């Protein structure tokens, strides 16, 4: 019964809302309330642009529970334009081969299908090749 847990994360999952430290201007995602850069309180919300580039990637064939339908899927660490790294899946990549440095942008997708009789579906951020780049390639 994880409903409140997922509801609490809506802002982060749907809109990449993190925090900015008012003391040293560090941008934080995920939000963590204490700035790792300067050690002071950082609770001001900050919405990230969703732009970034691939820091690393791999493919998951042996998926954990709830992810089997998506397997194989591409998992990445994405370096956001504002600084932080996030762990997320790459999606809509079609025939493109993922690469380190590939420009990507955030989209909202189904993260996990139902694993119990309540049938809760979890949506959240994934990243796709940046549209401008995709248009250029076409």
């Amino acid at each position, binding site marked *: 019964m994880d409903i409140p*847990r997922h509801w609490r*994360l809506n802002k*982060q999952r749907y809109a990449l809302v993190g925090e900015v430290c008012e003391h040293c201007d560090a941008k934080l995602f*995920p939000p*963590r309330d204490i700035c*790792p850069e300067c050690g002071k309180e950082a609770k001001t919300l900050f919405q990230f642009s969703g732009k970034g580039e691939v*820091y*690393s*990637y*791999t*493919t*998951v*064939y*042996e*998926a*954990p*529970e*709830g*992810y*089997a339908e*998506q397997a194989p*899927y591409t*998992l*990445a*660490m994405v370096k956001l334009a504002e600084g*932080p*790294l*996030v*762990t*997320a*899946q790459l999606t809509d990549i079609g025939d493109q081969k993922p690469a*380190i440095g590939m420009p990507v942008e955030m989209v909202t997708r189904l*993260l*996990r299908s139902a694993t119990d009789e309540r049938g809760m579906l*979890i949506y*959240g951020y994934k990243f796709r090749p940046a549209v401008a780049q995709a248009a250029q390639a076409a």
Partner: protein
Amino acid sequence: MTNVVIAGIGQTPVNEHWDLSLRELGLQAMEAAMQDAGGLRPNALYVGNMLSGALSHQAHLGAMLADFAGLTGIEAAAIEAAGASAAMALRVGFLAVASGQVDVALVLGVEKLSDQVPAQVESALAMGTDADYEAEQGLTLTAQAALLAQRYLHEFKVPEHGLAGFSLTAHANGAHNPNAMFRKAVKPEIYASAAIVSAPLNMFDIAPNADGAAALLLTRAELLPPKFPHPLVEIAGSSAVTDTLALHDRPDPLTFNAARLSVERACAQAGILPKDADLFELFDAFSIYSALSLEAAGFSERGQGWVWARNGAIHLDGDLPIATLGGLKARGFPGGATGAYQAVEATLQLRGQADGAQVPGAKTALVQSLGGPASTAVTHVLKVFNQN
């Protein structure tokens, strides 16, 4: 300082033990350790385990295992720090005995992974990552190691199969260990043709999940009779350090900072430098972890740890033998129990009882366990104890 010594050790083979339960595995290792110590009985039991709640529907392992071992009445509790659980239990046992509050502490690492299907085990192991921001994206420990390896190979221009030597060394050594899951050397061409699991990792870059239990009985040297049945090994240094839980929260994911700090602190306490160690039982859950752990311990610059994979120095007769009884790769990876196996194996080396895998003249061992990608790092320095 008070000398905390390892008076007894015990272990079960690491394997898929369909016929043995968590408590039966634990009992075998505990009984073996007590017998090895000439029948010494503990006042306290510290259990290192990660997943009994998730995979065996059993919490409260302290009471369960003290009860099953006929030790009801003693202090007992479980300690969890993902893959470093048993190493952390060893540290707690060390602290308890060193403090004088406990005279004899039994440290048990026990894990039962084979009761559930692989997808469930992967999910359970991923509980050691950040549940909200890593596991929820479909991350597994293997995928996370693959992300590390992919970036590492890219950034440092490592040649293809540049990490193979870590796995090949572990398998060559495991052939001599009767408790290892895989007891067969692997040829380079077999490694090179192995199936990719999560690129760039193939099946030989990943330690196999398995069941197992290993135990150590700790006490203070002065409490033992002068004529003890076997050589004693002392815990000369002990350190546990944390880093960010999520890998993506680090300024440089390719640096295992907690591993570095715990080596520095454990060695400082023991009055040695890492290079003084005759062997290094590192946490080779994935071959990339071996490279990053060697760098963290100061044996290489950042980005150069992989070079050790091609260096005979990591073999049993080299300057820095690693994974001497097979490591996680060939002995097997019994989750949170792993740290107890590593300490038992280092003890066998220092007692001169490692048979075909013996590191000649081993006097000092560095033993390190990691929780996740060194979100927790626990390092112990073990030394031959001279009673005088």
